[in-house]
């Protein structure tokens, strides 16, 4: 069959490959090249070596965004996973209304980032109104607002994955632990948690990449205000391209750095899941 099928490249693979070249391959390699060039449109690019990278790393907006993003990612990964795991524990006990709760907790995940940003802007500004300020008053308001928003959006999703993980634990393992006299706390610590570690890895990386690459929510909630202090990396790259004349090359250099960081995270994930597969 391979021989017959091989002749059908144009039918089976070509449409996707053409779209892939247009939307990904060409833009990617052009992007790498342009990060070493000075340009205002693609056609007037001039090679400038690593100049853009030097300027990116001496740009206080970029460094601030890097710090903000790193801090935000760490805080939201921990908060989301802890809360989602606790919820998953509660919702696997056979309590009344479990299905309704699960449905409701997951729902925010389907709402788009822009809409989420404005929903939370209303709520947070409403609360801050009592103190006579709004979310753009200080970057830390934007930070915690974004953390709460991200929790609201992603807890339900991670909870679903943890529930699946907990339900995958064979019932007799838990039963055996109980017969051996393990307290509920010991069962949780020494049986349940070790057995849901694959889910923990998945959820950690999902929240990690989603938080790190966040754009829409950041754009809608604060737009980087005040003075771009609450801008995350993706928003800072956007600002460099479209908000600052003469920064296109620097923006592209920042984008390459951003890509390398994201790829680095993915690589670590791949190695961790690979090594775990070997153990099993």
């Amino acid at each position: 069959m391979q021989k017959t099928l091989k002749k059908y490249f144009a039918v089976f693979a070509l449409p996707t490959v053409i779209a892939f070249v247009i939307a990904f391959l060409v833009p990617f390699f052009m992007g790498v090249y342009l990060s070493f060039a000075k340009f205002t449109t693609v056609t007037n690019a001039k090679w400038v070596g690593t100049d853009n990278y030097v300027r990116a790393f001496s740009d206080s907006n970029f460094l601030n965004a890097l710090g903000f993003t790193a801090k935000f990612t760490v805080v939201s990964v921990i908060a989301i996973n802890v809360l989602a795991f606790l919820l998953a524990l509660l919702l696997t006990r056979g309590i009344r209304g479990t299905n309704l709760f699960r449905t409701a907790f997951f729902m925010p995940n389907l709402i788009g980032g822009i809409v989420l940003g404005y929903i939370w802007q209303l709520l947070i500004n409403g609360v801050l109104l009592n103190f006579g300020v709004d979310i753009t008053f200080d970057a830390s308001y934007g930070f915690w607002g974004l953390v709460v928003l991200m929790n609201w959006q992603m807890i339900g999703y991670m909870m679903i994955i943890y529930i699946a993980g907990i339900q995958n634990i064979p019932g007799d393992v838990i039963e055996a632990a109980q017969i051996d006299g393990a307290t509920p706390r010991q069962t949780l610590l020494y049986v349940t948690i070790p057995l849901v570690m694959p889910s923990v890895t998945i959820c950690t990386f999902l929240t990690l990449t989603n938080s790190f690459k966040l754009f829409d929510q950041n754009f809608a909630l604060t737009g980087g205000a005040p003075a771009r202090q609450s801008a995350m990396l993706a928003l800072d790259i956007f600002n460099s391209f479209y908000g600052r004349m003469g920064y296109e090359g620097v923006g592209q250099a920042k984008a390459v750095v951003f890509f390398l960081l994201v790829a680095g995270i993915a690589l670590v994930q791949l190695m961790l899941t690979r090594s775990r597969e070997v153990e099993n």
Partner: protein
Amino acid sequence: MEHSGKRFNTILFVFLLILFFLFLIPILLVLVNSFKGQLFISNAPFALPDATTFSGIDNYVNGVQKIDFFRAFGYSLFITVFSVAAIILFTSMTAWYITRVKSPVTSVLYYLFVFSMVVPFQMVMYTMVKVANVLRLDNPFGIIVIYLGFGAGLSVFMFSGFIKSVPVDIEESSVIDGCSPIQTFFLIVFPILRPTAITVAILNAMWVWNDFLLPYLVIGTKFRTIPIAIQYLQGGYGSRDMGALMAMLVLSIIPIIVFYLTCQKYIIKGVLAGAVKG
């Protein structure tokens, strides 16, 4: 022991119920405010509408006119449906081809698709918009090509993963019986891929429907999808119309809730499968 366990579960039930309402508050707040006059929203968002602040459906009428909501809805629907259809059709064919035909070309393609999954949008944002402009893809038809290309990585990867687990014998016997590869694919292979196709469809539909930055940069000045229209309402005018914003937020959440409640089973399955593989 049994009794105290039951009582404990009741306490947990009450706790979950409170949490349930806390989770719904943001949406309820927007809903309530969408029925208030625009001057009464920012300075008293937690007040319920009363005789002076209640504005009926004025905000809805106003907002729908301001951002041409139903046109935006039409663009969102058109782009989502056809992009997802194109992704399902073309990436499943591609995945079958590169999994069944072993050659240097197909394995390079496979690794390129996998590689594209880890590249964030910002990396290709600027250049992709330029390429789309040059090739005249900056319209609701052209953007389907962009979505197919940029979404191909994950979809090909997921289809390939499934195809690898399907025995090749059935396909071979169908070829021996005189089916062409095209017939074999559509009559034999594609029906087997159905579960994965549903997962891929759900994941891509969620992505395309809610996507903001890509359509904003590629077609946003002429064709506004819902997220772009919402953003336009926010930033386009000197003073922002909070009433219209609230009403449009509600209108943009409704289709999502309807979709979720009707396809809940598939959505949960889809995001679970997507999480494990992506």
